[in-house]
C-alpha cells in the first residue's frame, strides 16, 4: 500500500507511517522498532543467547559461588559472571568463525593460515547439508506439503550416491556429476512414494514420510551388511568407500574441509528462490498449496503438483545426503545423517521458508554446533547448551507475538509477518 495516496496526514500522530520520502534514518528506526520478520528473527537469536547465559550462570560452580557471596563481594559476582559468559560465548565464536589471536599470529609470522580458517571452514561444511535439506523442506512447506521425511530421503540420496560413487568408473568430469545426480534421484524416489500415495489415495504425507524414515533407516542397516554395499572383508556395518573421482573437491586446498558441496548448496538455494518467485511450476505449486479447489477450477492438476512437489523436495534433501557422503565422509555407516533431516525442518522454520533465510539459518545452526564443540573443550560448558539456545530461538521465531511483547515492538503492517505453523497438518 502506498502511503502517498493518503490525504494529508496529521504530523503529530506517531502511529501513522512516515511518508515514503522520509529520511533513511527514520525509516531505519521504524524498521527496528517494528515486529517484522527480520527483527523477530534477530531478537529470537538475542533471546536464545540470553537464556543460554542464564543457564551458564546457574550451572557454573564459580559463578554460583560468586553470587553466593553477593553480600560481601558484590562487585565480584558481576565480574565473575561477565568473565564466564565472555569465555563461553567467546569460545563459541572462536570455535565457529575465527580466532583473533591465531589471526594475529598468522599475520605476524606469515604462517598458520590454515588454522585461522579451520573454524569457519568447519562451520561451512556442517552448514552445507542443512542448506540443501532445509531448502527442500521449505519448498514443500511453502506449497502446503509437510515433508517430515527428511531423514529417509537423505539416506535414500546418500545410498544412491554411494552405489554410483564406488560402482561407476569414469573421469571426475563425468563421475562427480553422476554422483550428484544420483543423490538427487534417490531423494526424488523417496519423495515420490508419499507423493503418489497422497495423490491416489489421500494418505497424509506427514504420516507416510515419518514412517518412511524408519523404512529407509533400517533399509540402510540391512544393505550395510550385504554385498555389494558393504566393505569387503569387514564385519562392521560400513559401506565401500567411493572413488576419488566421485568426491567433491576441496575448495581451498587439502587442509580445509570446505568443498564444492557448499557451492552446489548455494546454487540450489538460489535456484529454489528463482523457482518459487518466477517459475510457472512454482506458481502452480503455490496456488495448489493455498487453495487446491481454485487451482483445479483454473485447470491445474493438483495430483500432479503434489507428486512433483514431494519429488523435488525429496531430491534436494537427497542431495544433502550426497553432500556429506561425497564431501567429507566418503562411506556410509549405520545412523548415517544423524538428525540433519529433522534439523532441516527447524532451519526451514527459522528461514521462514525462503531460501535466503534457510541459508542464514543453516549458517547460524552450523556455527552453534561447531562452536559448541570448541566451547566444551576449552571451557567445560557442555555442548548441549547450544541445543538449548537453538531450541529457544526456534521457539521464539514460532511465536512472534511473544517476541513482540518481550521486546515491546510495534505491530508490523498487515502481511509483513505470518505465523509459520498456520495450516500445519492440514
Amino acid at each position, binding site marked *: 500500500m502506498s502511503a502517498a495516496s493518503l490525504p494529508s496526514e496529521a504530523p503529530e*500522530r506517531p502511529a501513522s507511517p512516515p511518508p515514503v520520502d522520509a529520511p533513511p534514518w527514520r525509516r531505519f528506526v521504524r524498521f527496528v522498532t517494528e515486529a517484522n520478520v527480520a527483527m523477530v528473527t534477530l531478537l529470537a537469536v538475542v533471546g536464545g543467547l540470553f537464556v543460554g547465559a542464564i543457564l551458564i550462570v546457574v550451572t557454573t560452580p564459580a559463578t554460583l559461588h560468586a553470587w553466593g557471596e553477593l553480600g560481601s563481594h558484590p562487585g565480584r559476582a558481576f565480574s565473575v559472571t561477565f568473565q564466564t559468559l565472555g569465555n563461553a560465548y567467546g569460545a563459541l565464536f572462536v570455535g565457529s568463525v575465527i580466532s583473533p589471536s591465531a589471526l594475529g599470529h598468522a599475520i605476524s609470522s606469515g604462517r598458520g593460515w590454515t588454522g585461522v580458517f579451520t573454524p569457519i571452514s568447519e562451520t561451512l561444511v556442517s552448514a552445507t547439508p542443512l542448506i540443501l535439506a532445509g531448502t527442500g523442506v521449505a519448498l514443500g512447506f511453502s506449497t502446503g506439503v509437510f515433508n517430515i521425511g527428511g531423514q529417509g530421503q537423505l539416506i535414500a540420496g546418500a545410498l544412491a550416491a554411494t552405489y554410483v560413487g564406488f560402482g561407476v568408473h569414469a573421469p571426475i568430469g563425468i563421475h562427480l556429476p553422476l554422483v550428484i545426480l544420483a543423490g538427487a534421484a534417490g531423494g526424488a524416489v523417496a519423495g515420490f512414494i508419499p507423493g503418489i500415495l497422497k495423490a491416489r489415495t489421500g494418505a497424509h504425507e506427514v504420516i507416510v514420510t515419518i514412517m518412511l524414515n524408519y523404512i529407509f533407516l533400517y533399509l540402510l542397516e540391512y544393505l550395510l551388511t550385504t554385498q555389494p554395499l558393504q566393505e569387503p572383508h569387514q564385519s562392521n556395518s560400513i559401506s565401500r568407500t567411493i572413488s576419488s573421482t566421485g568426491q567433491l573437491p576441496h575448495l581451498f586446498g587439502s587442509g580445509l574441509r570446505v568443498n564444492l558441496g557448499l557451492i552446489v548448496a548455494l546454487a540450489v538455494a538460489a535456484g529454489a528462490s528463482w523457482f518459487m518467485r*518466477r517459475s*510457472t511450476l512454482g506458481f502452480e505449486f503455490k*496456488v495448489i498449496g493455498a*487453495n487446491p*479447489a481454485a487451482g483445479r477450477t483454473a485447470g491445474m492438476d493438483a495430483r500432479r503438483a503434489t507428486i512433483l512437489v514431494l519429488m523435488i523436495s525429496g531430491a534436494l534433501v537427497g542431495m544433502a545426503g550426497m553432500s556429506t557422503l561425497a564431501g567429507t565422509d566418503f562411506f556410509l555407516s549405520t545412523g548415517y545423517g544423524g538428525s540433519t533431516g529433522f534439523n532441516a525442518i527447524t532451519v526451514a522454520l527459522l528461514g521462514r521458508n525462503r531460501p535466503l533465510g534457510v541459508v542464514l539459518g543453516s549458517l547460524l545452526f552450523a556455527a552453534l554446533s561447531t562452536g559448541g564443540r570448541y566451547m566444551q573443550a576449552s571451557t567445560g560448558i557442555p555442548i548441549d547448551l547450544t541445543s538449548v539456545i537453538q531450541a529457544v530461538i526456534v521457539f521464539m521465531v514460532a511465536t512472534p507475538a511473544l517476541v513482540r511483547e518481550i521486546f515491546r515492538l510495534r505491530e508490523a503492517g498487515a502481511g509483513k509477518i505470518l505465523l509459520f505453523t498456520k495450516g500445519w497438518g492440514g
Partner: protein
Amino acid sequence: MKLELAGITKRFGALVANDHIDLTVAPGEIHCLLGENGAGKSTLMNVLFGLLHADEGEIRIDDEPVRFADPGDAVRRGIGMVHQHFMLVPVFSVAENVVLGFEPTRGGGFLDHRKARKDIRRLSQEFGLEVNPDALVEHLPVGAQQRVEILKALIRDAKVLILDEPTAVLTPQEIEALFRIMRSLALAGRSILFITHKLKEVLAVADRITVMRLGKVVGAADPTAVDEAELAAMMVGRSVELVVRKEPPKPGPVVLELRGVRIVDARGVAVVDGVDLEVRAGEIVALAGVQGNGQTELSEAVCALRNPEAGTIRLDSTDLTKATPKAALRAGVANVPEDRQVDGLVLGMSIADNLVLDLFDREPFARHGARDLARVAADGEIKLAEFDIRAPSARETVGNLSGGNQQKVVVARELSRAVKLLVASQPTRGLDVGSIEYVHRRIIEERDRGAGVLLVSSELDEVLALGDRIAVMYRGRIVGIVGPSAGRDRIGLMMAGIAQPGPSESDGDNPPVTNLDLT
C-alpha cells in the same frame, strides 16, 4: 439510553474505513445503517463494540463520553451485538449458551440452571422470542439460533442491540418474525442498530436510515419519505438501473449439447438423471430450481470438474464428456463458480496473480517456464480499470477486497479468454446493488457478443430478468423449459415439482425490459 458516535475515524494503513462518522441512536429507535459491502458498516460496529479502536472521535452514552477497551466493556455499558456468523456452542443447550461467560451460580459454585431457564422464559415472553431453553443449539433452525443470540444480548441487559446483516441467512418467514421481535424491543425502549444492504428490509422496519458509502456517511433519510431507487442511488453514488435492459436474443448454432447426462455423487445417488439440454450461441439459458436439485453438479460437469457416469457433453465439436478441467477451459468454457472464495480465488494472492490463474503458464504471461511478472502486473492494472475493480492496485491481496470486487476479479479472468460458453453459477449471490448490476450487464454483453450462456441461479428474479429460456430442474431432471413470459407462479410450481410445463418455448412476447426485484 441515547447512543452517539461523534467523528469516528478508523484507518487500516492507507485505507480509511471510517471517515469522521457521526451517528445518533435515540432510545426506542430502529436505526438502519445501509451501505454496499465494503462501505465500512462492519468496521464502525466493531469500533462501537470495542473490537476495534477508533483513531479519532468518541462514543457517548447519554452525553457521557465512554471508551471501550474490549467487548466486555461495551457489554457492561449496555451494548449487545448479534454477529452475522453466530457465536454459539452447537452441543450446548439454549440456556447454557445464553448464560455462557457469566453463569448464575448457587452456593458452592454450582450452576443455577433454574434461574437461567427462568430468565430466558421471562425475556422470551416479553419480546416474543420463542425458543425452548432446553433444546440443543445444533438442532435449532437458523432463525431460532439467531433468537438465542438476541437473548444472549438481552440477558446481559443490552440497551442498544447491534444486528449485523441479520437477514442474510433467514427465510422470508423468519425475516418477518425477526422484524416483529425488533419492533417489540423498540416498543420496550431498547434501541436497535440494524446493518444491511437490502433496501426492502430497510423500508419495512427502520425508523431512521443512515446511508454509508466508501467509509463516509453520505446521507440520512426518513423511511416514509424515500423509495428504493433513491436509497440505492445514495448507496452507490449514482442512479442505478433497477431493471435489466436487454435486446431480444439472436440465437445462433448450438454451442453446448447435453445428451442423457447422468451424474452420480459420492454416495452413489444419481443427482443428475438423464438431462438433455442445448445452449445456442447468443442466448442465455437459465437453469432454475431450488438449490440441491442437481444444478450445481450439472454446471460442474459442463466445466469438466466432474465427469458424468453416462451421457455426452459436447462443446461445439469438442467432446467434454471425459475431459479435464483444463481441456474444457481451452475449448472455450468460462466458469464463474458458485463459491468464489473456495473455487474461484486464491484469497492470499494478489489480484494480478488471480487474474492469470488460468493462463499463468502461457504467452504473454510466461515464456520457457519463467513467469513475466512485469507483464502480469501490467495486465492486472489494465483489468482493474476495464472491469471496474475497486482496489488501490493490482498488487492488493484479493482477500482484502469486498465480495463484489472479488466477484469482478473472477469475471474479469473468465471473460479474458476466448469464450464460447459462459457458465455462471449464482453469479450475484451476496453482492451489493452496484456489483449485481455490473455482473448482469457483463453477462448480457457476453451473450450479445455471440457466446452461449448457462446461468445457474436460485434467485427467481435473476432467472426471469436474464434468461432467454428457462430450464427448471427438480430432483436431477429438467421438468420443463419455458420462456420468461411464463411468469413466476408457473415457474415456482415447476420448481416445486408440481406443474407440468405444457407447450413451451413460445417466447414470442418476450419483453425487452424486465423488472428486477431487489431482494
